[in-house]
């Protein structure tokens, strides 16, 4: 590949040996985004059920969580949580008499992003749960389904229909937020592009490559979400346009 670029005089357009580095960075970005997504989806479902609960002890903290997290920039929260997580952990291990252990930037990144986006997913799921007609749940209860069955067989398939557009949006925001973790020192795609750019003195080119990779991921995700939306909308008449 490099020979081809050299022979055609397009040397500046080859990856100049930085292909594997960029690939590693991409893998790191995807891994980080997917793990954070899993954590934030779990937090989102928990948060939404807490917010809709009849118990004040659950409702108040959940409301506080979503309001506070969503009113502060994710970058501020990333720095705040990343730098203080270790300090709190030190206090905790000392208090419990455990051994000191260091939290690695990747785990910290996943926890931080998952915790932040959990607040956005909470609102997302809350809206979706409220959109499911109450009669559906009443009917499920009347059929004698227990709580778990009611969620799995009746509520979840129907709430996904309402949640998917918001989920797709939030996922894209989350994915683009992972670019921020390079600021706290994680070797993600942006970091790889910056390093390659600094070494070759061709920053713009590598940044554009990184941008194209993000564009590819977002475009593929859009496709996937379109497909999922169609799937969860089966049996529902589409509005005539």
């Amino acid at each position, binding site marked *: 590949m490099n020979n081809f670029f050299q022979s055609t005089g397009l040397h500046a357009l080859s990856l100049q040996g930085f292909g594997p580095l960029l690939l590693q960075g991409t893998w790191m970005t995807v891994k980080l985004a997917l793990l954070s997504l899993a954590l934030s989806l779990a937090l989102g479902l928990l948060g939404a059920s807490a917010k809709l609960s009849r118990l004040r002890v659950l409702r108040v903290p959940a409301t506080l969580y979503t309001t506070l997290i969503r009113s502060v920039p994710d*970058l501020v929260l990333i720095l705040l949580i990343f730098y203080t997580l270790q300090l709190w952990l030190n206090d905790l291990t000392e208090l419990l008499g455990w051994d000191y252990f260091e939290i690695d930037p990747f785990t910290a990144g996943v926890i931080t992003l998952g915790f932040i986006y959990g607040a956005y997913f909470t609102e997302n799921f809350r809206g979706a749960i409220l959109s499911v007609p109450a009669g559906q749940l009443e009917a499920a209860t009347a059929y004698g389904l227990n709580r778990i069955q009611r969620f799995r067989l009746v509520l979840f398939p129907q709430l996904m229909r309402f949640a998917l557009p918001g989920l797709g949006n939030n996922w894209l925001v989350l994915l683009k937020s992972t670019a*921020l973790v390079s600021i706290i020192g994680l070797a993600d795609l942006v970091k790889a592009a910056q390093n390659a750019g600094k070494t070759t003195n061709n*920053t713009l080119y590598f940044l554009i490559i990184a941008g194209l990779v993000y564009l590819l991921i977002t475009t593929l995700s859009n496709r996937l979400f379109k497909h999922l939306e169609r799937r969860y909308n089966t049996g529902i008449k589409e509005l005539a346009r």
Partner: protein
Amino acid sequence: MIELIQEYGPAYLYSDGAGLSGLAMTLWLFIVTMVVGFLLSLPLALARVSRTLWLRWPVEVYTFVFRGTPLYIQLLICYTGLYGLEVVRDNAMLDQFFRNALNCTLLAFVLNTCAYTVEIFAGAIRNIPHGEIEAAQAYGLHGWRLNLFVILPAALRRSLPAYSNELILMLHATSLAFTATIADILKVARDANAATFLTFQAFGIAALLYMLLSFALVGGFRLAERRWMRFLVPARG
């Protein structure tokens, strides 16, 4: 905590001695980006819904690219990437523009928010009831008059909720400015953290300031919605 506020209080709010900083800088970034982005997005939104392909298509590509990539990459391209080009350094005007970190930051922010705003406004324009436009045409409004007096006001009112979301996200996005050495709230917080090691307090104050700004913005938009979207609220009793 008290020493932190005593020492860094002014820097958090308005000045670090070398110029505008903290809250004032964040507000300045926010207002310039909002105003320029808004003004640019109006003609682009009209182009986005235009029936002419060569008007619609470039805008579509623009919003696709800028909404599909992280703002951080766009900022890095504006701040470090473009200045690496000889074309930029050899041109006196471009050189002067890109040498200033604030210019680069504002450019990246404006291009980014404009892309999202165009899509919001274009969506609102598409959702205007046909009757409103037909009525305007029946009254003899065509061309730019139709756009300026009927379509844009109707679309802007309806896009208030989505637009307020975008502005809050943009306010939050301004915190990226510190990576381009701009002395916004977060930069002051980082400096305070590096000097005092009061990590939680230093970043906590920054979080609190952003929170206050967000709440003020949400409150402002609630008032705006009450005023300009009243005609959409179903009549009661």
